[in-house]
């Protein structure tokens, strides 16, 4: 019997995954979400910023990572706006620019960038710079001279017409740099080109697969916080909820929980089948 189970058709596995991951999206369980210390550290650092600080949000991902990163990117922007911080949105991935605009529309309204805060050096002021080419070199250039690297925003408006940008000329002007990252360039490069040379505090929200690589930088104090994948986003949403943010990840986290359990069950059954086959062969 175990050999049969070991050789089960992969389509059966696919259907089980589909059912178990889909069900909680329609019928959420509402599992409690404990908050990790890396998430709390991120939240507390943003909370402690002086109200006139400029937060640079870097949208370094594409649509493939958006389900994991877009919720935290939106909640992060909402958090900054709620605290009256100024936000500047950039991206070193070409695919990130529309996602940054979508996040801003979610937080500032569909009329974005035609909102009173756009380009203004006021509480909740915001500028969307958009894509900066060149990968890590583009990031290095941005850190050393923002205006020389790119003199216009995402919509073609010159920095000279955006009062907020008069305070954002080089990395030493950044309150913190937050990288929503799905790879390279991302927060690791920001540590190299902003934290190292200029002492800028760098935080990140990363896809879960990127967290193990980012963790040594957190424990060394080079990252002030990490929002770790979908779980980190859900934890952060629960903290930002205090400012009126409506959590969007309760059902997806239930789906992820069941997905993880299903994979572990598959691993156990697969190994039992493997052990039974081995015993039968006299191994």
């Amino acid at each position, binding site marked *: 019997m175990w050999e049969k189970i070991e050789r*089960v058709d*992969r389509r059966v*596995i*696919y259907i*089980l*995954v589909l059912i178990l*991951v889909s069900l909680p999206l329609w019928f959420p369980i509402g*599992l*409690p*979400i*404990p908050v990790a210390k890396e998430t709390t550290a991120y939240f507390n650092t943003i909370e402690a910023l002086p109200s006139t600080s400029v937060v640079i949000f870097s949208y370094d991902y594409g*649509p*493939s990572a958006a*389900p994991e990163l877009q919720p935290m990117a939106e909640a992060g922007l909402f958090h900054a706006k709620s605290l009256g911080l100024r936000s500047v949105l950039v991206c070193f991935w070409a*695919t990130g*620019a*529309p996602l940054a605009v*979508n996040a801003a529309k979610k937080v500032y309204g569909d009329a974005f960038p035609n909102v009173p805060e756009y380009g203004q050096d006021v509480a909740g002021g915001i500028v969307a710079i*958009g894509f900066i*080419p*060149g990968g890590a070199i*583009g990031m*290095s*250039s941005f850190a*050393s*001279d923002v205006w*020389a*690297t*790119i003199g*216009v925003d*995402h*919509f*073609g408006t010159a920095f000279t017409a955006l009062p907020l940008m008069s305070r954002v000329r*080089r990395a*030493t002007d950044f309150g913190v740099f937050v990288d929503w990252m799905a790879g390279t360039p991302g927060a690791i490069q920001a540590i190299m080109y902003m934290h190292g*040379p*200029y002492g800028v505090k760098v935080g990140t929200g990363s896809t879960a697969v990127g*967290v*193990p690589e980012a*963790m*040594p930088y957190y424990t060394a104090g080079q990252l002030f916080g990490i929002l*770790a*994948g979908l*779980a980190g986003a*859900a934890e952060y949403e629960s903290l930002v909820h205090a400012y009126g943010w409506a959590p969007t990840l309760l059902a997806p*986290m*239930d789906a*992820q*929980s*069941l*997905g*993880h359990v*299903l*994979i*572990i069950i*598959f*691993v156990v059954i*697969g*190994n039992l089948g*493997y052990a039974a086959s081995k015993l039968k062969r006299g191994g």
Partner: protein
Amino acid sequence: MSVAIVKRWIPLIITFVIGFVVTLDFFFFAPKTAAHDAVSLLKATVDVIVAPSALIGVVTLVRHHGRNITKRGKGWAFSSITILALAFYGLIGIYSALSTTEFNNLVLPHPAFAWYYDNVYAHLDAAIFSLLAFFIASAAYRAFKMRTAEAAVLLVVGSLVMLGRAPIGGVIWPGFTTIQSWFMNVTNVAGFRAILIGVALGAVSLALRQLIGVERGYLGPGA
């Protein structure tokens, strides 16, 4: 001018001069000084270098898939779709740039381009990535076997971290969260730190070799 000068010495001199100046800037030039600003300008020229490289990418892609289509090679139908999609995306870009003077003729914020990105590209990209959930489940079932002691350790630790990262782990037993946190913050950090230090030393060594012209592989064959 001889081939060696064009293919080897000029690129090597450019690499050395730019690499040396940028390295000097990183370690010694203070912000707001003329030298630092000059190097900032130099780094900003990366935009100029990146733009033609995109064109080279398009030419290479069209040549590769065009050849496959004319030879009716493996998957030639998919090659056709690739070229059609490339042409379509390019046309949308050209249309976006020419159809309005708004946004200073920039393509990215144009509604046509944004519509294509939001309604076609985003869904295709997300759909392909979401297939991973199915492949991982199937792979876990078929390949994640305790064939050796090392595989057994990997399997047990992987399962514990998976349970600890998901909310259901803490509901089953709060200890899963603590164990996961320990693995991520202690064993993972120790292992990754060693890897990162090794990679960094290798990168420094490679950079130095390129800077002084010992490593010339990036110049192509015959350099």
